[in-house]
């Protein structure tokens, strides 16, 4: 694999190089102090040492509220997604792995047209990171990426991972210096707490009872999760005999999620809470057995009551003492 060195001073030129592929969005700090992916106009906007964004890149592929059908003259028509060409610059490995997982869900046997329409207009540029207290990761997992930048002191080691990535690099030959030395880059990553759990042993963990007692069902863990993709579909008739059908983020923490005519699959808070983690660690068919937690740590960090699923797994697999929930949650998207 060809690797090239991009000196820090060439970053602006590199961003310009990306422009023909779409509007460049990258990690930045919003006015309200939240770290988010947003349009970038100069390297100064970029927060290269960010830990994680509050809302993951799924917002570009599965917007919170997404019209899917319109009804006019008694006829339903697809509502094609508004999908401009977009470059996502500076995604961490976990978020790239999350996109790879979402690709499996939404581009599988029966591709989702809205997702597919947005996905094909996306160019992904990854960026190496430093782990924080909440995240862990398994670099061996597949990641969706066109170019990856390993950060070092005075620049980046750039590696193409797709034909598009190769093409971008060939268009910017003057920017890259060939590198014969590997700058020291890698901070040790926190290993993932568990492999698969086909026997669902963690379901019996007594910690669930405590977690179910304190979970507020606020949904923050799922809203912030890069691989939580559940949605609710609702249709609103309009005043002119037409209507709109839309989908909106939903999750198993909410009561309606498990309700069907005449019953409820997950009556208790415990069932609802555990179901999310079951999905993360065990998967559903056809992705049964595929871990969908990429270890970004967002859920633990955003939870107002400090629920951290690593504790459940630690106890089950390593026989550790159950950790108590932390006294104060530490907030959402601020850069530490």
């Amino acid at each position, binding site marked *: 694999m060809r690797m090239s060195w991009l000196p820090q001073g060439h970053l602006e030129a590199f961003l310009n190089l990306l422009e023909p592929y779409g509007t460049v969005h990258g990690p930045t700090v919003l006015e309200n102090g939240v770290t988010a992916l947003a349009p970038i106009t100069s390297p100064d906007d970029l927060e290269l040492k960010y830990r994680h964004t509050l809302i993951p890149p799924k917002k570009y592929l599965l917007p919170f509220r997404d019209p899917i059908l319109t009804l006019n003259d008694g006829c339903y028509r697809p509502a094609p997604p508004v999908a401009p060409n977009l470059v996502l610059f500076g995604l961490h490995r976990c978020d790239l792995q999350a996109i790879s997982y979402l690709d499996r869900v939404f581009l599988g046997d029966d591709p989702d047209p809205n997702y597919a329409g947005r996905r094909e207009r996306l160019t992904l540029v990854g960026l190496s990171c430093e782990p924080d207290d909440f995240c862990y990761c398994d670099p061996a997992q597949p990641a969706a990426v066109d170019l990856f930048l390993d950060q070092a002191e005075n620049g980046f080691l750039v590696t193409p991972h797709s034909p598009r990535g190769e093409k971008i690099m060939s268009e910017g030959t003057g920017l890259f210096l060939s590198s014969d030395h590997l700058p020291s880059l890698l901070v040790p990553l926190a290993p993932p707490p568990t492999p698969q759990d086909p026997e669902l042993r963690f379901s019996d963990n007594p910690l669930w009872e405590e977690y179910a*007692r304190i*979970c*507020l069902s606020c949904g923050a863990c799922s809203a*912030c999760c890069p691989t939580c993709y559940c949605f609710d579909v609702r249709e*609103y008739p309009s*005043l002119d005999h037409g209507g709109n059908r839309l989908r909106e983020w939903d999750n198993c923490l909410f009561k309606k999620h498990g309700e069907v005519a005449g019953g409820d699959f997950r009556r208790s*808070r415990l069932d609802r809470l555990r179901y999310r983690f079951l999905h993360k660690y065990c998967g559903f068919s056809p992705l049964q057995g595929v871990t969908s937690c990429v270890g970004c740590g967002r859920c633990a960090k955003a939870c*107002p009551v400090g629920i951290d699923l690593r504790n459940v797994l630690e106890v089950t697999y390593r026989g550790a003492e159950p950790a108590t929930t932390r006294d104060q949650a530490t907030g*959402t998207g601020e850069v530490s």
Partner: protein
Amino acid sequence: MKRKPKLAIAGLTACSGCQLTFLNCEREIPTILDRFQVSFFPLGESSGGDDERFDAALIEGAVSTAQDLATLFALRRASRLLIAFGTCALFGGVAAMNNQLCDRAELFRSVYGREPEKDLIPPAPFTNFVAVDFSITGCPPEKTDLVALLGSLLAGTLPPTTCYPVCMECRSRENSCLLLDRDELCLGPIIQGGCNARCPATGIVCEGCRGPVSQANVAQEMELLLERGFDREDIRRRMSRFTPGWNYEQRD
């Protein structure tokens, strides 16, 4: 041509804010008037006949007088669908905020300087008295919810409902969390969403104007706020501003 559905829009003890939501639909009003017959709307000066029947009655306000109760019963009898329109109708609302704190008769004496009428009712939600077919929450309600209801009535149905808390929309808008990041008394986790987190999006805490969300873990929100240093009485006062009837022990 199909008969236009007949609407009644009325208010009990309330500020008329919910009815104003209807008048605020400037863009939609011509279409609404074209599709519906708004035959009883005292605020808008149409008073209807005595024996009139309605396809739907949208009623705001809490029940707090004998007259309120009579109006509510009359509209219930006259309407196929009765819609609790706004937080007061659903939960008692602002008028009921001190229900638990002070004696009604005492309050009456100090405000009106005379003995209270016999049939004084502590401001209460509709469901204490009549069957309610649908409700629109909010103080005031969102225009979009009202338009969705009217559109659905035309289609012969009722709109789909949601049950996520304010936090869900708040997070999706990438707001800074006032509860966690700024240590403020935000009720978002236990309040019904649908307002697109109006208040937190402008840096103001959610005061709970849309009432409890169905899966609210009330006891834990209380515990969390106490842990974060808020005073129990302040929390209760804040929580009862729009909904007096919280069960503070509720976990499930």
